[in-house]
């Protein structure tokens, strides 16, 4: 299948994208190398148990979607004081050296087939640069996809002792028709004592195939925190990751999803403890209705030299329909004994006793169930430190409830 896409893509097209963005030679080379590598790269790994692949990525027919020179989008960027929130061409113009240094340092441009495709073809995206010592509360990015395929690439660089909160919304434009493909790569670098908080609210329309990789590196005392809301899309394959590279650094990954009809979510949260005294907390809650399906993988990897590690993971899925399916695999990989680690995962339905209690108080059954579903998300919502994000997510959840 991958050979088909390559056949459609040419060096000329990639070069043209690069020229339109007025890119330096090194970035064009990176793109062309990624294009070149497509033939050898595999699809992103999916979980397999005997006789079964949990997500079928071959369902994506890239040949039909990808027209490298046809990418339309609306982009709103709201920046905060002291922070540069820039388009790629502006960013390359203003911070060329810095971008050359950081680009691809967190997410390997050739990590897998879909990432390499993004590297070769991205034209949309944003660079957020937070200089040393700057604290920025409200950076907002809204991406509205208006073409059949969109390749979005975001780079966040937070220098020493800075902090930034970024809120990204991903949506599909009104005039969209038919199946589409959205691809998003986010690289975040938190320097010494810096904090990056990155929230993404994905509400693409339900004919869109969605692939995303978000990955952060932390310096000493640094923090990268992710908030993930997955509501839209036909099929989502996403991984949110942090490598704790600096001593005493931290990461928190908070996720919420709500699938209905025949949506399929393949969601991963991964953290690598690679330095001393690091802490990670992974929390995900999701609800499935109708024929929706979720695949969850959580990885806590404690390295040989990661002394004094604290690592926690919780995943809970609520199933509202008998036709839905929830698969989960929370993994602990522990190489240092000076660790306190735990994970837990549960799958269940709305509690019968709670339902009975509420219906006996004259609340109609559907209203009672909806209240319990909203209540189920509460522990995750309360972990969302950004008010606006929390309200938006709660709003989308409320919309999804059965009448």
């Amino acid at each position: 299948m991958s050979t088909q896409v390559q056949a459609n893509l040419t060096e000329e097209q990639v070069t043209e994208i690069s020229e339109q963005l007025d890119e330096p030679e090194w970035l064009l080379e990176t793109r062309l190398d990624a294009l070149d590598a497509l033939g050898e790269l595999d699809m992103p790994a999916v979980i397999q148990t005997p006789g079964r692949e949990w997500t079928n990525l071959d369902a994506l027919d890239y040949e039909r979607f990808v027209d490298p020179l046809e990418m339309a989008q609306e982009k709103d960027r709201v920046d905060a004081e002291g922070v540069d929130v820039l388009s790629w061409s502006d960013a390359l113009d203003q911070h060329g050296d810095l971008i050359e240094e950081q680009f691809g340092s967190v997410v390997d441009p050739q990590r897998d087939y879909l990432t390499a495709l993004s590297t070769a073809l991205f034209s949309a995206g944003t660079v957020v640069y937070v200089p040393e010592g700057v604290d920025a509360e409200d950076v907002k990015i809204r991406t509205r996809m208006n073409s059949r395929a969109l390749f979005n690439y975001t780079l966040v660089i937070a220098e020493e002792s800075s902090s930034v909160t970024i809120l990204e919304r991903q949506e599909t434009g009104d005039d969209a028709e038919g199946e589409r493909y959205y691809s998003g790569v986010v690289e975040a670098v938190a320097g010494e004592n810096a904090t990056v908080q990155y929230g993404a609210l994905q509400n693409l329309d339900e004919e869109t195939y969605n692939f995303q990789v978000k990955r952060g590196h932390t310096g000493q005392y640094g923090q990268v925190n992710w908030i993930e809301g997955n509501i839209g899309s036909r099929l989502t394959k996403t991984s949110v990751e942090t490598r704790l590279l600096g001593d005493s650094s931290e990461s928190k990954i908070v996720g919420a999803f709500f699938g209905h009809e025949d949506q399929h979510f393949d969601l991963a949260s991964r953290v690598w403890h690679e330095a001393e005294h690091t802490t990670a907390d992974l929390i995900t809650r999701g609800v499935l209705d109708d024929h929706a399906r979720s695949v969850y993988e959580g990885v806590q990897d404690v390295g040989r030299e990661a002394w004094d590690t604290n690592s926690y993971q919780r995943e809970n899925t609520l199933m509202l329909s008998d036709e839905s399916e929830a698969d989960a695999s929370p993994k602990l990989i522990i190489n240092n004994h000076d660790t306190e680690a735990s994970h837990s995962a549960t799958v269940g339905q709305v509690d019968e006793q709670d339902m009975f209690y509420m219906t006996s108080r004259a609340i109609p059954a559907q209203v009672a169930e909806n209240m319990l579903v909203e209540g189920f998300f509460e522990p995750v919502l309360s972990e969302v430190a950004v008010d606006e994000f929390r309200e938006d997510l709660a709003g989308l959840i409320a919309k999804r409830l059965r009448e």
Partner: protein
Amino acid sequence: MSSDQDHLKETDTEARFEFKKEESSAFKSEKGLTEETIRVISEDKDEPEWMLERRLRALKQFQQMPMPTDWPGAPDLSEIDFDEIVPYIRPDIETRGGAESWEDLPEEIQDTFDKLGIPEAEKNALSGVGAQYESEIVYQNMQERWEDKGVIFCDMDKAVQEHEEIVKEHFMTKCVPPSDNKFAALHGAVWSGGSFVYVPEDTTVEMPVQAYFRMNSEGMGQFEHTLIIAEDNSEVHYIEGCSAPKYSAFNLHSGGVEVFVGENAHVQYSTVQNWSKNTYNLNTKRAICDADGTMEWVSGSMGSKATMLYPSTILKGPGATDNHITIAFAGEGQNIDTGAKVYHNAPNTKSTIESKSISKDGGRTNYRGLVHMSDGAENSSTSVECDALMFDNESTSDTMPYMEIQENKVDVAHEATVGKIGDEDVFYLETRGLDDDDAKQMIVAGFIEPITEELPIEYAVELNRLIELEMEGSLG
């Protein structure tokens, strides 16, 4: 029972497990796996044609199947050379299918099992005992009172001859087909020895039935097959112990266990495995459980260089229950990759998995589990609990559970924790006058207690003693 306990305490456990005998055998197959070898084994056992056909079919499947090497964190199996394995050794005894009395056994075999404490255990606490040496059962005994009730306990080769219809129906057909994995296929081709247990309807075998397996020859493969059939409303507890001394070449153990639990029947299968540290232990064990039946797996995995073993239960009938209690201990150079698999295929089924592991001196323990809730398994529940205890940063402990949930009216919970031996706990015990070694040993003993309390006393003592041995010299 107390004399048995004393016996085990007094015997130096290390000497019991590490001695080895000079090799002497009546028949030894050629190295490697060919159709010819399999025909020779089958002929030597005077098997019916259908069994030979099953073996040959399994060999073909084995040759076509891949090695399980692409699993994350799975043991390295590259050292296994199928051309170097001697798949079949018949020990040098006159009596085929097991001597009837202990005294009939050749002295060296008597001596071996004496050191392992087999006759003691039998005298004191068991309904029946079988002992396998290399590829064949060499001793078999069943108390008369159970025989009178129609309980059958004999070696598998004999069962093929004497209970052909039952075996033909159940042997690697529904429970563990050779197509399950490469080593199940291997097992299907070259299996030899093992136990056959049949418990008729409404019969309770109150005392455990025990089999002991020992590998003595270098470069040998042991492939015993255990088939347990518990008819409706019956109850039996089967215990298996295994050991092999250490040689420089690798040994391969690839057993197969099939358990059929009838309606409202109850089977407990307990095993303490202490293969030598050059043994690859790659087993397939599975139970099928009918309505309201209960299956219990209790296992301690101590030895082997690498173990890949995931006892599994298919809860086929409504109201069936499955419990797993396992402990794994991995020291230097060991990779114990084990877990449990449960398929909830009927409503109101229930399972619990309790897994504990200890790793030290660079040892690696993995929990790899699968819980599957089929569409229609409503009102079923499962709870999985994994605890790992680690001694040092050379060791590794991974927990990789998989949950596949296709039914909404279920309750699924998984929990795992990893931690080191608590400094405060050690300090507390030390302030009460214990030295460091004793304090840690006491903590470990407490950690594994949920397992030992499920085992008959002689096995519990053995497990504790084995863990003490593993910990000796490594602490302080």
